[in-house]
């Protein structure tokens, strides 16, 4: 078995003629729980989209050592049209679309059963026939999480799953991810540095470049050396940098 799931080498990506990522390098390891942090516009979402083949890189390479259809994806929730006439079950089943493109005559019974199982495990099987427009923010995130699990991924990519949800669902979500992490690698983009450092195993700072940090504890000085200014300034001696830990923690090695 290969050591790495994905190898990103010297990746440069532009968006509307603007260089967003410059010579970025990152390896994704099996069963890693990688938190991606960085300032807005620093290239977090672009990195993900390049990874998923949604934007074309200018240079560099992305090498997958797992099949592409074994990658699960949960996009930012505001990307979808909430008034689209589609039921929850159909949304979840759409997570496995690519594997059955020409299989038009095959009954999709097995897919449907698997989708129902996922909804059941997420505790929302009661809403499976509802239209997505009728759901709350938390329910919708659960549905999209189910969709991203439909293809039984080995790598799960989540883009800010903690927006538009309440605190209770947020902790439920992270507990669920922790459980899923026993079976799959997770790559999580978030702006909430404090919360994710509690759950993730490793951190990558993305700001034009990618700095991989093989631990979930990161100090102010390290963030500064990674050139990773974050939006929320809590405290610290160096201006425009932030500490990933809660205020009353020391900077090194304190775990919750």
């Amino acid at each position: 078995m290969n050591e790495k799931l994905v190898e990103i080498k010297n990746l440069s990506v532009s968006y509307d003629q603007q260089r967003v990522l410059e010579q970025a390098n990152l390896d994704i390891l099996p069963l890693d729980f990688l938190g991606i942090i960085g300032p807005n516009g620093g290239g977090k979402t672009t990195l993900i989209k390049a990874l998923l083949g949604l934007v074309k890189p200018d240079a560099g390479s992305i090498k997958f050592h797992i099949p592409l259809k074994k990658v699960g994806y949960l996009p930012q929730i505001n990307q979808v049209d909430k008034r689209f006439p589609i039921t929850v079950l159909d949304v979840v089943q759409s997570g496995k679309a690519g594997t059955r493109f020409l299989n038009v005559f095959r009954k999709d019974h097995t897919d449907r059963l698997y989708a129902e199982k996922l909804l059941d495990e997420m505790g929302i099987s009661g809403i499976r026939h509802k239209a997505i427009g009728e759901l709350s923010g938390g329910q919708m995130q659960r549905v999209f999480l189910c969709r991203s699990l439909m293809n039984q991924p080995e790598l799960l990519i989540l883009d800010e799953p903690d927006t538009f949800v309440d605190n209770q669902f947020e902790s439920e979500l992270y507990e669920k991810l922790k459980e899923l992490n026993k079976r799959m690698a997770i790559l999580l983009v978030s702006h909430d540095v404090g919360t994710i450092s509690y759950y993730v195993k490793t951190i990558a700072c993305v700001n034009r470049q990618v700095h991989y940090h093989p631990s979930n504890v990161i100090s102010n000085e390290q963030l500064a050396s990674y050139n990773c200014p974050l939006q929320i300034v809590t405290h610290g001696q160096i201006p425009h940098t932030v500490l990933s830990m809660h205020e009353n923690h020391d900077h090194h090695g304190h775990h919750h």
Partner: protein
Amino acid sequence: MDTIIDLFSYDFFMNAFWASFFAAVSCGIVGTYIVSRRIVFVSGGITHASFGGIGIGYFLGWSPLLGAAIFAILSGWGIQLFTQKGKVREDSSIAIWWSLGMAIGIIFIYLSPGYAPNLMSYLFGSVLTVSTTELYLMGALSLVLVLFFSLFYRLVLYVAFDEEFAKTTGLPVNLINYLLISMIAITIVLNIRVVGIILILSLLTLPQATANLFTKDFKKMMMISVLVAFIGSFAGLLFSFYVDIPSGASIIFTLVLVFGLMKLAFYIRQNILSRD
């Protein structure tokens, strides 16, 4: 005055009946896709761009419908291409094709010798003069659409709902998009004779608005739209016949009336009857 049964013994009325039926099937299905995906304005662009083809058709002495079909498909692809590759904002890209087509149409109709006798029927529709050939084409289109949307239902649904996600699951999103925009173009062109360029958009959106009151499921919305479109067009056709008004306008008026009444009924049920 003829009874409805008597009407069916007239060839022109039978043609009009089948034209409304095929219009209901094709516009019900394609319109659901258009409305769900919020590309009504794109369809408006295609519709008006097709006028350019009608003008060139007149000028060259070809069938205006053939010219319209070519213009409609090219403008549909053009709008997509401009938006995707040319980085033109979608609404601007639509406006460019919309007005370009109208301008070409006006120029060539002006240049054509003599008066264009059927021009009004392209602008405002004339279901009672639909030819047998046109009827066959409409029937074939309806059949193709029913087959395509049943066989590739999930494919269409997934791409329409979340295009970017569909790409990540490996679906051929671009192919589907171009295929569907072509189907929209053909549907618009073949139904222009029924309600006309000016009114065709309503046949693609009004039945769907009514259906959307009853269901939030894509497949059911297609079926109900077809039903509503058929009831609306047939009732509109009868109304135009007995009152002697233009059929296209009569059909659209009926569809608006159906939507208004249903909306009112739903409003009363939700806000007044459900009160304790």
